């Protein structure tokens, strides 16, 4: 590189030295226009609507014309009881599902990297729900969770417990939907944990064995801290998914009974169906703000812990 003097040595030698400045601009092997197809679609279908949402959320909107109403939509969202309940539910749902996915995913991950026979079979069984569509899972569980005839309550009746009307009772509806979400999504968390645990060098486990540590020591001082990157991925992924969740709520309860299991995403759809496009978009903006306000600091915080 230093043999030739500076960039102004003529076109001949510079052709082989791609680092020289004036030439990289035109002839980089990594031209920026490779971004073009992805960038164009992303800009048009994602970024522009996201930007427009901020304006349209401030209007009363019929898709054909819009009247500016200021913050009225947001005020409606925060003032009306059946809209406000959506916030609370969204947060409860997201925290509940991602918490359970971390705990169960880690547990299953430890189990399925152990010396269990039938390990392959169990991995497949746990991962399979990830591949079934949410609508199919929703319909199946609405049948299984029926109050009198449902399989879950019949099983509970055998051991003498009379189960509640899981999806029809305002106190259990959201919880039940969340548990179905965990059932369907824990396979992905488990797979992430399996990969994380398998990438821990065996030396650490040997060191614990030399010190005469128990299985609990192995878990507490090696597996748990060293699978942190997996925990980080599972928390972020399932929190984002949980905050946006719509499909399970919609296929199992449609937000009911009443508004007791409505989440922000289902309210957005209901307002859209009812033709309140401005209000629906305001819901979208609020969801955007909530997701950003929760996920960005968490990402920062968890990412910092990962380094240390």
């Amino acid at each position, binding site marked *: 590189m230093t043999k030739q003097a500076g960039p102004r040595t003529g076109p001949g030698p510079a052709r082989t030295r*791609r680092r020289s400045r004036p030439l990289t601009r035109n*002839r*980089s*092997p*990594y*031209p*920026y226009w*490779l*971004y073009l*197809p*992805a*960038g164009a679609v*992303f800009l*048009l*279908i*994602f*970024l*522009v*609507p*996201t930007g427009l*949402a901020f304006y349209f959320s401030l209007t009363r909107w019929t*898709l054909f014309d819009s009247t500016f109403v200021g913050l009225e939509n947001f005020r409606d969202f925060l003032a009306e009881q059946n809209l406000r309940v959506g916030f609370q539910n969204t947060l409860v749902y997201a925290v509940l599902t991602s918490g359970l996915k971390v705990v169960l995913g880690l547990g299953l991950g430890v*189990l399925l990297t152990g010396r269990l026979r*039938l390990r392959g079979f*169990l*991995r497949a*069984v*746990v*991962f*399979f729900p990830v*591949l079934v*569509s*949410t*609508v*199919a899972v929703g*319909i*199946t*569980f609405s*049948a*299984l969770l029926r109050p009198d005839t449902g*399989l879950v309550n019949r099983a509970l009746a055998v051991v003498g417990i009379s189960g509640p009307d899981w999806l029809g009772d305002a106190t259990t509806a959201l919880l039940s939907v969340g548990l179905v979400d965990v*059932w369907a999504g824990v396979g992905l968390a488990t*797979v*992430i944990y*399996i*990969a*994380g645990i398998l990438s821990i060098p065996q030396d650490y486990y040997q060191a614990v064995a030399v010190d005469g540590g128990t299985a609990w020591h192995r878990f507490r001082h090696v597996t748990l801290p060293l699978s942190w*990157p*997996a925990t980080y*991925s599972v928390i972020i992924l399932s929190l*984002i998914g949980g*905050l946006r969740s719509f*499909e399970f709520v919609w*296929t199992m309860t449609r937000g009911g009974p009443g508004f007791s299991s409505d989440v922000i995403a289902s309210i*957005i759809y209901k307002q*859209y169906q009812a033709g309140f496009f401005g209000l629906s*978009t305001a819901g*979208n903006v609020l969801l955007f703000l909530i*997701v950003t306000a929760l*996920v960005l600091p968490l990402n920062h915080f968890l990412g910092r812990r990962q380094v240390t």
Partner: protein
Amino acid sequence: MRSLKRAGAEGVVLLLATVIFLVPFSFMVLTAVKDDVQSADLDFAWPTNWPIVQNLVEVIEARDYILLRAFVNSIILTVASVTLIVIAGAMAAFVLQRRPGRVGAVANFLVLTGLIVPPAVVPTIWLLQAIGLFKTLPGLVLVEVAFGLAYAMLLFRAFIAAIPRELDQAAMMDGCGGLSLFFRVIFPLLRPVTITVVLTSSVRVFNDFVNPLYFLPGDDNATVQVTLYNFQSQYSTQWNLLFMDIVLITIPPLLAFVFFNRKIVAGMTAGSIKG
């Protein structure tokens, strides 16, 4: 003694996993092959009749073969979206990984945005309507591509980072420019991660319910998931047909799972951890 305890624990775990994860699936299949009277019980009893073929024919013929049309729509949607996601995503991830700088920083930020930000639904409908693509299959393809790109780019970028730059330089010595360098040298090397992206994106798009519900309403171009959703209210008394439908539309992802199980899991985890 310890091995006995171990075998006991294994048995318990196996039993629990089987009950929790397999019972719902066996329930789907069992209900799908019962007659309509028995299926209304929604229980776990063994079928007394086995009208499998009859249920199958009835589901397919329902509402003027809507399920077949939905399958065609879903397959077109999946193939088109995934092709675009793979090509556009890999190209962009290649530049993103190889060329840091201000543009790269912006692109990185946009990938993060695409992963986190929930899409603004009604403005997207408005925009699609403005360019004449609302309620059309190409419009939905663009939507699926826009929403799926960020994740694909994340996987591709992690994989490209492991391809040495010396290879690019060697290819350039041989006269490869940007496009031919990418398509003739880099893209073939991405095969393992491409398989992962193809499979995860196909399952996601094929199983997608929300986007078709918003962006492709109407019976003419329904996708399989929307059909299932509509059958739910229509077949409230014919559970056998509803569950036959569920079984039918679960077959494509199931096949993907059976054939590529190991590859999906390996590639996906590599990407998620490196993130």
